[in-house]
């Protein structure tokens, strides 16, 4: 069944979009991440123009994260104060990111830049995840115990000014690191069309030292609002959010996420993270290959603006 996307100005198989939404939703439910990092490249792969894929991907991430946020909010797992600080950085970052995106679009380098961002970010995150989880698995096999926690460790980050008390996270730290983390995720969110959960969660645990119980809820809080900001800015300044595309992806995605989450409870933490890391790495390698191998056609056409 073909459906016409009014902003992308092309028709796509609706079942294909529902399927992609379901698959990505399933994986995101399984691994507890938004899945935007898989969605946007897949959309580009099936021929959706990069600007539309990125903008609609952010819109989809917003919808997909809302249900998770509601669930976490009910369980009182959201550190609102930390969320707001992250968000302040996130708003600034995403505003800058959308400007960067618009500039790249004018320069005709959007496709390349988006792929490049994906390769660098996913490659780094994937490598770190695989390394960390493989180490944890080896450590567990060897000692039979849980991995030692780095919580409460003092680093140079704790010497920064503008300290603030985050009661729910049981932290008394400077607002500078969370602001910077939020800012960075905001930029990436705008350029890559992702929520950034897959980067935010490790950053919160290892950089900020937040307890795991509030990490998911607080990251969802940040992701929902940053994705909303990106959606608004992309719709307003670039004009590339395709709501028909978003809704089809969401329809498949929310269903898939529930099945994934049900399955995810059966997997062990380290194994899940290792699998997710491999998946992230795989996407990065695929995109890198596209950038490196000789293109079939040296020329490409596009609308002149």
């Amino acid at each position: 069944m073909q459906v016409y996307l009014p902003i992308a100005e092309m028709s796509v198989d609706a079942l294909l979009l529902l399927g992609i939404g379901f698959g990505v939703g399933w994986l995101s439910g399984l691994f507890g991440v938004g899945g935007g990092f898989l969605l946007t490249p897949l959309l580009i792969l099936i021929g959706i123009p990069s600007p539309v894929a990125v903008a609609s991907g952010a819109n989809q991430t917003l919808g997909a994260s809302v249900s998770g946020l509601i669930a976490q909010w009910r369980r009182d797992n959201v550190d609102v104060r930390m969320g707001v600080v992250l968000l302040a950085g996130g708003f600034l970052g995403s505003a800058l990111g959308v400007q960067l995106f618009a500039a790249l679009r004018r320069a005709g380098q959007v496709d390349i830049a988006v792929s490049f961002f994906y390769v660098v970010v996913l490659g780094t995150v994937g490598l770190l995840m695989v390394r960390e989880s493989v180490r944890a698995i080896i450590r567990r096999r060897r000692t039979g115990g849980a991995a030692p926690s780095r919580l409460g460790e003092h680093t140079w980050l704790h010497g920064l000014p503008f300290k603030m008390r985050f009661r729910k996270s049981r932290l008394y730290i400077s607002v500078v690191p969370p602001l910077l983390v939020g800012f960075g995720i905001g930029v990436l969110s705008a350029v890559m069309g992702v929520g950034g959960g897959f980067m935010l969660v490790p950053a919160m645990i290892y950089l900020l030292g937040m307890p795991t119980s509030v990490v998911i809820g607080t990251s969802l809080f940040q992701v929902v609002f940053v994705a909303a900001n990106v959606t608004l800015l992309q719709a307003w300044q670039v004009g590339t959010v395709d709501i028909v595309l978003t809704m089809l992806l969401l329809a498949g995605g929310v269903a898939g996420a529930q099945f994934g989450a049900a399955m995810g409870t059966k997997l062990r933490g380290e194994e899940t993270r290792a699998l997710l890391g491999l998946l992230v790495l795989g996407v990065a390698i695929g995109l890198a290959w596209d950038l490196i191998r000789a293109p079939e056609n040296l020329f490409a056409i596009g609308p002149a603006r």
Partner: protein
Amino acid sequence: MRWLALLVALLAALPARAQQTPSTPLLTADLSTDRVEITTGFTGSSVIVFGATENLIGPETGEDVVVLAWGPSQPTVVRRKVNVLGFWVNGPAATFPEIPGFYAIAATRPVWQVLPEEVRRSGRLGLDALPLRAVGAQAPAFRAALLDLKQRDGRWQEYAAPVTVAGGRLFSARVSFPDTVQTGDYRIEVLLVREQRIVARQELFLRVDRVGSAATIAYVARTAPLLYGVACIVLAALAGWLGSILFRRN
């Protein structure tokens, strides 16, 4: 009585026909529709151009019919990929500010066989007769790439569909629009060619429009982008919330 009435009618018609003969158009043409609607289920569409000629069409009589379809102008940029440190990035670009977004030509015989070059150039008959003026990179490879890519995605067509002739005088041609067709006013030209000259021409018009929800969405997104952005946020959030209720696992 009836036969008498018929006779009178015939007699009355005869002089009229005799008068008409010299002014009988050499060519008459029309379209199967003057409006192509892009709906939510749009996957491309086609329009039939049909008509009749006064004389027989064909190589024996030397008469040929050419059908030309023009879309609104669509500035297009052609980029060439270059290898920078092992990565393929977009390099030099040529912008073609005034080229048709859609162009199709169909004919009973290729125009280069039946019309001299200056006529083809002035009438822009055939892809090789289109003036492709570029801003930026000027290498002929950009022009060649433009022609190649535009034809590949179906937005420019050269003799992709034939002009079929029935009974020597009735002709028809199908103009196919891909799903990526632009909205706007399209012009169809039907030409009658004899002895290396265009002896008759007729212009027809059709409009490509989005209709229904596709039209509304595109309209709101363009005219009220801020409102559209807010609507996208609300709709996505609602869908997520609804999904969490529908598929809640207890």
